[in-house]
């Protein structure tokens, strides 16, 4: 997957994720206040593979990395799992 496609796909998902977090402050509150959110699509495995490769670099930078997994369902739902170094 080229960078342009990766960026475009992540931008689409980022908008959905942000709307979800803003409308669910009770979930947002559970995340670290300075979280780096690595997005994982419900359907696009290729995107998930390239996004997974972003994690080691973020951990090296000392970021609080959290995987944001989109859940395939009618409603916009996400699951979050923190990643430790």
């Amino acid at each position, binding site marked *: 997957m080229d960078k342009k496609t990766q960026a475009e796909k*992540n931008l689409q998902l980022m908008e959905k994720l942000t709307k979800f977090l*803003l409308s669910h402050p009770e979930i947002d509150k559970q995340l670290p*206040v300075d979280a*780096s*959110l690595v997005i994982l699509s419900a359907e696009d495995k290729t995107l998930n593979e390239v996004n997974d490769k972003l994690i080691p670099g973020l951990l090296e930078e000392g970021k609080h990395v959290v995987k944001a997994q989109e859940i395939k369902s009618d409603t916009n739902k996400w699951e979050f799992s923190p990643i430790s170094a």
Partner: protein
Amino acid sequence: MRSRKFFLVSVILSNSTYDILLSCMEKRKKRNYKAKQQKKIAQTILTVSREIPLTETDRITYVYARDKTEDAIREIINVSYDAWIEKSWLTILRYDSTHGYLHQHTRFSLTQEKEFISKEHIPQEGSHQEWLTWAIGDIKTNFLAYRQAFFNRSDLYGTEE
């Protein structure tokens, strides 16, 4: 006893000195009240930062101040598109609501740090949450155009993947 002392002090001090003293006391009272209020606000405001990597060399970051008691966004501190160029992260474009309205800062080029500041075509009405959603939506829609324009202004065209 205390009131007698106060009377004596009042007599000793001339009228103007007494006025100055009262004014100073009033100012100090106001200052203390302001400091207390600011402390109270600081205790209820939480700064939240979310960084979302798009690729190894592109990321979106948004930072906002949330009122913990009301769960409402009080300020957009930053919504930015950053690119990894020449071994460091560079903010190409960002939004904030520092002056009470949403506006855009665009970095001129890689070598020139000066920014274009604009509030044109940016909603000036609505809640902070709506502004945040709008800014993210704008970066999503115009990401490639913003990136390409910056690379062109920096004479970096053709060096990107």
